[in-house]
């Protein structure tokens, strides 16, 4: 499997918790950006099994996405995802994406609770998220994912359940549920909101897992849940330590055995004939990576002698062993940094 990730670094405005690279959207820059993407794409004359437009807010440049996809070589059954903000998409945008070959949308819903949305500084209300998803479905998108956020200010197990209830009433196939992390170089980092404490976050996480499982969304990764057969093939490439090419500022790649990242600078990306890539790992330790990524997945990792020995220090409620593989339980996922360190340390 080989994936292609395109980082679209444009936003109308930045959310206070987000520390991904993006710039203020401008038509002129987005045109130059698309040209630069095409230049760089030409350096990879290969077939991609998955394509993922992340951001930023890729739906802002739906027309450009169509142009770019025309130049990408992919098989008929490829998974082609675009991240969407509910307040950016309309019928025209969605139709454009559909015609361009996009077959999976990932909506940044975050919450269906007005209070929580406000606390997160999101532009859209709860209704626009529902409308956007229904519209996408009516236009023929059958694989729709929704992102929700856990541990946000004012969230309770009850308000979380309401969000999940609301989501599951919509035609979606996949949910990503991320614990809010306060990043230092964000408005939240500088002026931290009051969020649930460690124990509160753990409760919310476990409640989310339980609620989603109950509604037929099986947990297949720490933060990801899907109806049977709708697991994100693109993201699985990352977690299974397979290869992918990243294009765009701050995009990461694992290609030809090396891990490297593009510098996070839009100007530079537009001007350079070839994007500037900085090697982050010349020769990744495959064993280590398989463990630290594989333990994110429900499928887990193959058991070996070393892992078996290290597992003896870990309480049983955090992991399970089945068919020669070890995987973490939801409680185990919650403390996975510790468990991974215990196995690899």
């Amino acid at each position, binding site marked *: 499997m080989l994936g292609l990730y395109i980082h679209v670094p444009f936003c109308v405005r930045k959310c206070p918790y987000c520390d991904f690279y993006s710039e203020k959207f401008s038509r002129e820059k987005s045109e130059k950006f698309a040209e630069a993407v095409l230049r760089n794409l030409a350096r990879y004359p290969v077939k991609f099994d998955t394509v993922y437009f992340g951001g930023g807010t890729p739906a802002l440049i739906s027309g450009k996405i169509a142009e770019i996809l025309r130049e990408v070589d992919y098989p008929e059954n490829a998974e082609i995802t675009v991240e969407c903000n509910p307040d950016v998409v309309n019928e025209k945008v969605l139709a454009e994406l559909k015609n361009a070959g996009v077959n999976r949308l990932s909506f940044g819903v975050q919450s269906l609770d007005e209070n929580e949305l406000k606390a997160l500084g999101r532009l859209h209300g709860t209704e626009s998220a529902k409308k956007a998803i229904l519209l996408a479905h009516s236009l023929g998108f059958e694989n729709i994912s929704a992102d929700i956020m856990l541990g946000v200010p004012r969230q309770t197990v009850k308000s979380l359940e309401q969000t999940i209830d609301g989501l599951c009433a919509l035609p979606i196939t996949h949910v990503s549920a991320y614990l809010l992390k306060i990043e230092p170089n964000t408005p939240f980092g500088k002026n931290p909101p009051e969020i649930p404490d460690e124990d509160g976050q753990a409760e919310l*996480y476990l409640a989310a897992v339980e609620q989603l499982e109950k509604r037929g969304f099986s947990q297949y990764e*720490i933060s990801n849940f899907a109806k049977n057969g709708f697991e994100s093939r693109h993201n699985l490439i*990352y977690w299974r330590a397979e290869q992918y090419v990243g294009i765009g500022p701050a995009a990461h790649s694992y290609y030809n055995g090396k891990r490297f990242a593009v510098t996070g600078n839009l100007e530079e990306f537009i001007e350079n004939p070839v994007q500037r890539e900085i090697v982050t790992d010349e020769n990744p330790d495959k064993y280590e990576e398989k463990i630290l990524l594989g333990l994110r997945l429900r499928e887990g990792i193959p058991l070996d002698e070393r892992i078996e020995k290290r597992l003896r220090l870990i309480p049983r409620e955090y992991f399970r062993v089945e068919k020669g593989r070890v995987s973490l339980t939801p409680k185990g*996922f*919650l*403390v*996975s*940094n510790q468990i*991974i360190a215990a196995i*690899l340390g």
Partner: protein
Amino acid sequence: MAEKSYLDNIRNFCIIAHIDHGKSTLADRILEQTETVALRDMEEQLLDNMDIERERGITIKARAVRLKYHADNGEDYIFNLIDTPGHVDFNYEVSRSLVACEGAVLIVDASQGIEAQTLANTYLAVENDLEVVPVVNKIDLPSARPQEVKEEIENVIGIEALDAPEISAKMGINIHAVMEEIVNKIPAPKGDIEAPLKALIFDGVYDSYKGVIVYVRVKEGCVKPGDKIRMMASGAEFTVVETGYMGATELVPASGLKAGEVGYITASIKSIGDTKVGDTVTNAQNPADEALPGYREVNPMVFSGIYPADGAKYPDLRDALDKLQLNDASLSFEPESSVALGFGFRCGFLGLLHMEIIQERIEREYNLDIITTAPSVVYKIEMTDGTVRMIDNPTNYPDITLIAQSYEPMVNAHVYSPSEYVGAIMELCQNRRGVFKDMKYIDEKRVDLHYELPLNEIIYDFFDALKSRTRGYASYDYEMIGFAPSKLVKLDIMLNGEVIDALSFIVFADRAYERARKMAEKLKENIPRQLFEIPIQACVGGKIIARETIKALRKDVLAKCYGGDITRKKKLLEKQKEGKKRMRQFGTVEVPQEAFMAVLKLDDD
């Protein structure tokens, strides 16, 4: 009238002062005045030549230097300035340095007046028949009150001080007057050059080429290269290779040393243990009848375990201790092992400062991360079978049923402080099981509080507590006075049901509960939450007297691994691996080194 002798133009003296009253600065100024050191070689505080000494502004080891001074009377004098350590931990070394002199320049800070160490050192000097020459320093400070301080010196110490030079060593004011006082007030040494050799060892340093360089004051007779010498206390014999004087920046070889002179001897001496401070060097062929008085073995007072943070560094730690011991015979160590900490050393120190200095030097000069266990004093235990055991390691504390009576070391402590803090100091001393002896007014505003205290109560944080209760105005000094019967128990700490031997300590029985509770709290603060709940229990003789619980960790996850960026996850893993190196594994529990350090400081505030 006696014939003029070379002795008439020698002055052997030291400088005594409370810490920070300007001893090293005055020494530097004297060196400048005598042009012993070219200005370009001047480094602040030349005599203190260890980094730590310069930074802490204290003299750890005595040093000596020979100077030439052209006096106002037209004569040239040899000054031998012997620098003394100012801290109570090194009292014995101080006393031996004093014995090498005929006089002492007493520095008193013009604004602070007399402090604990001023008195302690002055009394030592007077006891050893030294002529004490007072000078009042730091007169450049706005808060200086030289007249009052002089009266204080007269009233409290009882030496004439009204004509004492008022100086500023820092600004170089009136140093010349000090030089003349040294010439005129301090007596010339006496001694018979024909008598059998008696030379007092007051210091020694190890040199990898010459062996131990022994610093001596020749009291009687003479010594020269080729002589066979004997150390009268240790009995060790050597052949002198070199004799000479201590220049300010280097050793200056000379053909011999005679009575009254201060200098050095080398004799291919491999171990500093053979040249004990206070011992008498004599001629092996023509020995003196008796040694100079006052020699004693210096026994360590405070013990603690030192372990390498990284077990693989054990040989490096041994090497560091070996090298430190070359220059510091009062440091003792022997291998010990702890279930908790692995292989390390039980080290003995003269006091807490000595311990801190050694720890710091190991970390700084030898670049080793170390874990230190709680300091312990030596306890004397009478067993039911009539034998007596000395215990310096809680691990070896006998079973309570085998103990007839336990004893702990006591000190006589003097606290000097402005009188408004008397209440606070008395409360502190009482909390530390002190027995009030008496209280004297030094002047209208300052008192000398005399307490008898268990040494065990002052080795942890007494000085810190004293400082914080008196806004830093109080000073204290103590001397050992022997053992007193006590009720002692051994307190053990268990993590997840396992005794952590490195955290055990011996405590006064009535304090056990309070200490246990504080220990448990401190450990809870310092041990991070882990994958399972960890009970912390403190027990005496198997009975649990305090308990805390570290709750299981609930959340430690990198929820998002976005866009294939796994650099964060890897960085985190590296950080965790690095962190693990600073952890000690006890069964399934990981304890950070900081936890061992934190429990040493159980502040009672």
